[in-house]
C-alpha cells in the first residue's frame, strides 16, 4: 500500500485558506524539515494510522493576533493563553479536513501547544515532509506535514 503525504497538501491548504484567511504556498517539494524552527506560537498533533504523520502549525505573534481577530475574538481579550488555544483548535480543524483524504483512516491525537517569543518548535527536530508557508504584513504562518512522529 502506498502512502503520499503530498495528498494532504490540497485539503490542508483549503482549510488554512478558509479558516485562517491565508493563502499558503508550498515552498519546496517534500524534503527534510529545515531545523531548528522557531515560532512565537506553535501547535502539533500526531495522526496515527498505517503511517504516522505529525502536523505542526507555527505562527509569529502578529499572525496569531490577526488570526484571533479574524475568528472574531475580542481584541481586548486576546492573550497568550488564548492564542495558544487558537493554534490548537485551528490545527484540530485543519486535521479534520483530512478525514476524507486517501484511503487510510487516522486516529487523531490531541493538539499540544506552546507559546513564548521565538521558542524552538520541539516536534520539528528532524523529519521529512511538506511545508506550507504564508508570509504577509499580517505575520508569518507555517504548516508542516511531517512523515512519522518527530
Amino acid at each position, binding site marked *: 500500500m502506498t502512502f503520499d503525504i503530498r495528498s494532504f497538501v490540497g485539503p490542508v491548504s483549503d*482549510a488554512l485558506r*478558509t*479558516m485562517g484567511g491565508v493563502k499558503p504556498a508550498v515552498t519546496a517539494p517534500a524534503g527534510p524539515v529545515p531545523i531548528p524552527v522557531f515560532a512565537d506560537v506553535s501547535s502539533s498533533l500526531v495522526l496515527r494510522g498505517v503511517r504516522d504523520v505529525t502536523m505542526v502549525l507555527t505562527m509569529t505573534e502578529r499572525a496569531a493576533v490577526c488570526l*484571533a481577530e*479574524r*475568528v*472574531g*475574538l*475580542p481584541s481586548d*481579550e486576546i492573550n497568550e493563553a*488564548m492564542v495558544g*488555544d*487558537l493554534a490548537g*483548535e*485551528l490545527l*484540530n*480543524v485543519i*486535521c*479534520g*479536513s483530512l*478525514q*476524507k483524504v486517501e484511503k487510510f483512516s487516522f486516529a*487523531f491525537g*490531541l493538539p499540544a501547544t506552546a507559546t513564548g517569543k521565538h521558542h524552538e518548535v520541539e516536534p520539528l527536530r528532524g523529519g521529512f515532509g511538506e511545508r506550507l508557508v504564508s508570509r504577509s504584513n499580517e505575520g508569518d504562518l507555517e504548516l508542516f506535514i511531517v512523515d512519522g512522529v518527530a
Partner: protein
Amino acid sequence: MKILICDDSAVMRGIIRRTLDQYGVNADFELSEAKDGQQALDHIAKDVPDLVFLDWNMPNLDGLGVVKRLRSQGSKVPIVMITSVSDPERVYEACEAGVTDYIEKPVSQIMLWERIKEHTRS
C-alpha cells in the same frame, strides 16, 4: 433560521462561526452564542433556535445536562453535540439523553455544514 453555538471556549465558538461564515451560512442563518450550559438554556427559553451545536464539557451545567433538561421539558430542538470525548459509553449516554447527532473532534468544516443541511431541512 437560527443556530445556537454553545461552547465555553471563545476560540471554538469563533472557529465554528467562521466555518459557518465561509459556507455563507451567516447570510441565511442568525448565529447566537452561549458560554455555558445555563446560558444556553436561558437563550433557548427566550428564543428557540432551529439547531444547536453543543459542547459536552462546559461549566455551569455541561452539555449532557443541557440535553436532559431540554428533553424533559419536551423540547425537540435538534442538538448536535461536538466533543473530544470518544468513550462509547458516553456517546451512548448522550444518545439516550436525546442528542440528535454527535460530532467527535477534530471537526471539519464539511462535517459542520453537512449537519446543518441534515438537521435544518424543512
